């Protein structure tokens, strides 16, 4: 698949270089550079409107960026480079790229008319053309792993929010993704359900899956993150290991934000 960026498998799972994005007259991303190593957990913090979700959505090309490059596993996302020109990929090629990037939404976005198992099996079969029986076996194992194996034949609306989000995580995992992106995965949950979802994400982190998590859960960031990124007003204000960014922030804005959240 990777046509331009040949075989130079990068040491980074995700590379973001000079990304800008404007909605109308509002510049939501103003020059973002970020590298995420393989197997690491990156947590993005920041006030609402700081551009964290837009950045996350740009990584799997749900948002098209105005300038800059995004690479996943060394492969340019959304474009093909020929000399100094970027040729937009066809929709089919973009969909193919997305099928190796997991995405977990704030509102779960499970397909309500399909059972839990069908939700998990759908994309590996239709997008990755894998064998259905094989995928089903794997899907059941994944549901077991996120603790909802007994709900395989239920419909999403018969599940609690926490269970739905865990199914959504299994659905993302079924694609065997190179990286999983979480867009505020616990923000739509009742407080007592947050823990069960965070536990699943932690377990993924320990297994060495590359994760990028946009969240407001500072405690989770402190415990799980390899790198914490603090964004404000479309720029990365600072980044580093959690004890540095959370406990000894260099910038005034970071300090104010953390004191307000804690």
């Amino acid at each position, binding site marked *: 698949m990777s046509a331009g960026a040949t075989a130079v498998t990068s040491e980074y799972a995700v590379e973001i270089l000079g990304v800008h994005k404007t909605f109308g007259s509002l510049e939501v991303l103003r020059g973002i550079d970020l590298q995420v190593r393989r197997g690491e957990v990156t947590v993005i913090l920041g006030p609402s409107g700081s551009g964290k979700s837009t950045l996350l959505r740009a990584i*799997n090309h*749900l948002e098209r960026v105005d300038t800059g490059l995004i690479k996943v596993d060394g492969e340019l996302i959304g474009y093909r480079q020929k000399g100094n020109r970027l040729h937009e990929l066809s*929709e*089919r090629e973009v*969909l*193919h*790229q*997305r*099928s*190796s*990037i997991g*995405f977990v*939404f704030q*509102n779960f*976005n*499970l*397909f*309500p*008319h*399909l*059972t839990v198992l069908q939700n998990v099996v*759908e*994309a590996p079969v*239709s*997008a*990755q053309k894998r064998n259905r029986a094989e995928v089903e076996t794997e899907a059941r194992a994944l549901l077991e792993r996120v603790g909802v194996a007994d709900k395989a034949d239920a*419909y*999403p*609306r*018969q599940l609690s929010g926490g269970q739905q989000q865990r199914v959504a995580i299994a*659905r993302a995992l079924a*694609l065997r993704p190179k990286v999983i992106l979480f867009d505020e995965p616990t923000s739509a949950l009742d407080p007592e359900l947050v823990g069960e979802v965070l536990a699943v994400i932690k377990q993924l982190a320990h297994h060495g899956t590359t994760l990028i998590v946009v969240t407001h859960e500072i405690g989770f960031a402190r415990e799980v993150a390899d790198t914490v990124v603090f964004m404000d007003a479309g720029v990365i204000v600072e980044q580093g290991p959690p004890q540095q960014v959370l406990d000894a922030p260099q910038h005034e804005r970071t300090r104010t934000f953390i004191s307000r959240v804690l």
Partner: protein
Amino acid sequence: MSRTIPAPQSAAPASPSPGLAPSGPPGAAVEPEHLVVVRSRHPWRWVAAVAVAIVVAQFIHGLVTNPGWDWGTFAQYFTAASVLKALWMTVQLTVYGTVLGFALGIGLAAARLSKNPVLQVVSWTYIWAFRSIPLIVQLLFWFNIAYLYKTLSIGVPFGPAFVEFDVNDVISGMMAAVIGLALHQAAYSAEIIRAGIISVDAGQLEAAAALGIPKRRQFFKIVMPQAMRAILPNAANEVISLFKGTSIVSTMAIAELFYQVQVIYGRSGRVVPLLMVATVWYIVLTTLLSIGQYYIERHYARGSARSLPLTPWQKARTRIRTFLDTATTGRTPTRAGDAR
């Protein structure tokens, strides 16, 4: 149960003979679980029910006894070969109109929702035009199409033709009717389908896109099944109104149901019983369509509620079963249900 019956009677009379009433001060002496609930009464419900029942009975009495209805003639023609043949024509017009109309409607809805401005404008204009022209006017245009175009040819646009047909040979009266009904239906079904598609939560498409599901499959496997919930009730309305609307074709001397009964009563002069023949057939088929609608809607309701309600048939079976249980075991329905 029987021991509790005297209680409401003793409670009812207020105080004509206080000495006879066994009750002491309210709430005293009786254990809470032995207190008897007296249901409130609704006398006006009974009055309303009786009044309506009388009107209904009178109407039915009229249907049976008024010789004007002429049920003998009705029975004679209801299943007459000519009527059944005309009914079949009506069904065919409905099926062709529905299938072609909705097929074109899906295309128009997709065009209207596409990002291509030319397709959007053409689709909008089509819908605008065909909703503006009365069906009967449009049908008469198609009936007289040979006046505008004498031949029909397939070939290079604006260039030479490969095959040529005489329009009057190709477009029969039936064909003209089907084309008219389908084109008319397409405009309405396009809007119904579009309404269904835009009613699906944007997050669904986003999730499908994020998972990399191919575009066609996103539409047919993710969007359409969810859109169907909004589409079906309106679509069923359209099919039923098309089914009855086929009677308009009678003005073009096509032998559908309504035309046929007109022909018969034109000969025999028995207008009312023959109108009843058509009416009852329309009612019967509409009923069948409504039953079909119920089950199709149920099919697409999967996952929308925590559990689907029972169908009328399932309800009836449960009721009969509990009734039989009560009859055989002599126990109350709920207990009998548990005992099985």
